[in-house]
């Protein structure tokens, strides 16, 4: 269990971020370290002034999927950002912004939500990943 779980988050829609947050929280609950690397639209969703807004759903959700997601939220499901906050409290979750994506979006570290621990390049991410599983969402 010492090898970390490595999540590369690319998509910035709420459903994919929710699925990723649940995976991260489960690993943290088992004491597994988790490295999260934020790229492109996932990074955009972690902007301080945007994290709580509606980020939409993946195209395959359709109107029916939208209804299911809304129903679960109304029933009290925690948001992905709240799930990540709780999971960070439980275990070791390191969330890093991809430096290339920072340049792409034209943002600086102060634009990011405090959930994000820092900015790094892809090489640092791979080095920290060790032999652990790599998941791209």
């Amino acid at each position, binding site marked *: 269990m010492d090898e970390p779980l490595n999540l590369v988050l690319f998509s910035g829609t709420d459903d994919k971020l929710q699925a990723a947050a*649940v995976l991260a*929280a*489960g690993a943290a*609950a*088992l*004491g597994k370290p988790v490295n999260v690397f934020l790229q492109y639209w996932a990074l955009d969703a972690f902007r301080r002034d945007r994290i709580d807004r509606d980020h939409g759903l993946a195209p395959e959700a359709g109107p029916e999927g939208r209804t299911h997601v809304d129903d*679960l939220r109304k*029933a*009290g*499901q*925690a948001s992905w950002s709240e*799930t990540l906050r*709780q*999971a960070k*409290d*439980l275990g070791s979750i390191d969330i890093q912004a991809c430096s290339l994506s920072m340049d792409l979006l034209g943002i600086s570290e102060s634009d990011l939500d405090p959930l994000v621990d820092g900015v790094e390049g892809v090489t640092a991410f791979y080095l920290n990943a060790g032999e652990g599983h790599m998941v791209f969402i």
Partner: protein
Amino acid sequence: MTAETETRPTITRTIDARGSFCPGPLMELIRAIREGAVGDVIAVRSSDSGSKIDIPKWIEKAGHRLIAVDNRDGFDEIIVEKAR
């Protein structure tokens, strides 16, 4: 499963995680276990269908003692003793 109720240790703390979705109930239990002392008996109530599978597996891996998994009306109650 409820026949052995009288032989069970007294519950120190009950966490009502009903209405919380996976992995919320487990996260709430872990927090309670951390805050508690060895020997504490914690009951967690969950309406999430995964909890009755996930939480006992976590308890085993984390080295605590599973006392019972009770199916109640619309929720499960999992009882665990903090062992370390």
